[in-house]
């Protein structure tokens, strides 16, 4: 008990922050900054949900019991989320004060890993949201598989094989996957594909 009274509170707070918040593979301070931003987003989201729940009709016309209004549980959840978001943000404010740390934080969005994620996500989104539904399913699938393999085996790979070989094998795999998947699901499992 006496330790807690005599010890400096800032040190205690610092040690509790560094205890295990940041995963070992990342630079210190990155997770705190991410937590600060998510904390604020969650706070806003929680308040918005609580507000929408409060505005929800209470169905007085139907004479329902006032304790069973539809907005009760979402309202409580919204408030709890806002509370947790506030804790998350407040806890990270102190650790996120210096501007240099924010530059490091911004750096993770332009790293090679971010590029790989961005490319995967772009391909996945174009396939699911644009190609499927506009092209026949087998063609959309073949195009996606081809683009994915070429992107990662050629553009993002350190040990490149010749472009013609990548393109050739990718084309073969793309056509096989597109046709097989379509046939198997349409006729094997009787799924009507988009």
């Amino acid at each position, binding site marked *: 008990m006496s330790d807690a009274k005599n010890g400096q509170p800032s040190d205690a707070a610092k040690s*509790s922050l560094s205890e295990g918040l940041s995963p070992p593979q990342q630079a210190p301070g990155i997770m705190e900054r*991410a937590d600060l931003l998510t904390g604020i987003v969650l706070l806003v989201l929680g308040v918005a949900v609580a507000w929408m729940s409060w505005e929800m009709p209470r169905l007085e016309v139907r004479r329902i019991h006032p304790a069973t209004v539809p907005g009760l*549980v*979402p309202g409580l959840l919204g408030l709890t989320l806002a509370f947790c978001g506030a804790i998350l943000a407040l806890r990270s404010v102190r650790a996120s004060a210096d501007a240099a740390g924010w530059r490091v934080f911004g750096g993770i969005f332009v790293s090679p890993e971010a590029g790989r994620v961005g490319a*995967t996500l772009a391909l996945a989104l174009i396939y699911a949201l644009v190609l499927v539904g506009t092209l026949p399913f087998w063609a959309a699938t073949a195009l996606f598989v081809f683009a994915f393999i070429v992107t990662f085996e050629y553009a993002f790979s350190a040990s490149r094989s010749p472009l013609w070989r990548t393109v050739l094998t990718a084309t073969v795999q793309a056509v096989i996957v597109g046709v097989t998947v379509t046939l198997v699901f349409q006729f094997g499992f009787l799924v009507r594909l988009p």
Partner: protein
Amino acid sequence: MFDGLTLLGDGLMHFLTPASLFNVAWATLVGIIIGVLPGLTATMGVALLVTLTYPMPPDQAILCLMCIYVGAIYGGSRTAILLAIPGTPASAATTLDGYPLALAGKGGLAMGLATTSSALGTMVGILCLVLLAPLLAEAALNFGSYEFFWLALFGVVISGRLTAFDDPIKGYIAGILGLLVAMVGMEGLHAYRRFTFGVPALGGGIDLIPAMVGAFGLAEILVVMKRRVAARIVDASDRVIPRLAEVWKYRRTTVRSGVIGTIVGIIPGVGEDIGAWGSYAAARRKSAERDQFGKGSLEGLIAAETGNSAAIPGSMIPTLTLALPGSAAAAVLIAAMFIHGIRPGPMLMVENAPFLYQVVAMLVLATLAITVYGLLLTRPLLRIMTVPRERLMPVVYVLCVIGSFAITQRLFDVYVMVAFGVVGFVLREMRYPMAPLVMGIILGTLLDVNLRRGLALSNGDVSPFFTRPVSAVICTLIVLSIIFSIPVVKRRVTSLFTNARRTTAGRD
């Protein structure tokens, strides 16, 4: 008791047909392959395969999904031992000793012992399932709205508390987000449409399967593709089939890890990965060769593999008797059961008692299958591990799109999958666990309806939620679990105990 044995015999006989055995054979193999491939998890495998089993009869469909579940949890150990990458999160503890064993040229022995331990662990869990599930189901018949409200909340809170990587608040936040997702759509008491924003497709709510395919499929693909380097496989050419003496030597560890794994499995929303870590920690504390742990201890490997496999039957106990998922994959299984017209919960033993014993039979068959495959198929499984991710992941994503589309045949579910994939990836990168999110989505309706129904029954009075005995116990557990996750409280209490120990030691 005798009734139970008869039903168990019936359950086993039920599946001893060529068609069922064929299903066991292919589904377990698919499960093992899913487990072996890094980036494909048991939850994702079960969620994707729900689509394939859609046209099957209910018992065969659940049989296939169960075999995939057991196979995937086992298959992850292969990759953990030979690549030092857990094939599924459940095998993370296996890497600690499995990989050093492989480096020391005992890869075959490690794979063999992992196989026998997984089989024995599942058997311990199955025994507990047979003994405990009927008792729990009978007790649960007395549960009312008040108890079910607390159980639903308990599931989300305890899952958030125990699966969070290092920060319980992130587990709780994931749970609340899941509960909020469950609030979307028409609610059960007054048929009011909440948070639909004028989108007709949202009226029916957000389905669990597309959400899971996104959170465990697309999100996992993004995680796998983010890594820059691929790992190298360790060569393992020693004998795979272990000697009986090697298995018998660690019998205590096996039983202890099996029991711990089962208990962890029973805790809602806390599954195989925590089962493995729990058994591993307990084995190290009790072991005579403690210093060998992490450097290639056979005991550590056995503990981890027994623990994660025992958690599977353990997780089926609350899943079947309370409709409270024991793990993330069990949540998907509940959704699959509803699709096939099987309603898990307290009424299962009344309406459909043979089903419980059929699940036991499914687990027994799956265990036999992993033992056979595990000891015989060493080389082919090795080859699967070498499939480059650039070639595999696009195919997996195509299956994710089909899997989310196929059940209700609408593109809206594909959009749900994509949205959950992106959000799931961002949450994962910031170290939020996925299991509480799943628990929230599946338990949201139960929590919402039972809270308001309970309040209506007591005419707005909240006291029955705290005074009924079972309610009071669960409520206390929830409060304690939350209080102890506050760092200050935890530190104070720990220091209180160490101080007390120091004072008594000083007095001596």
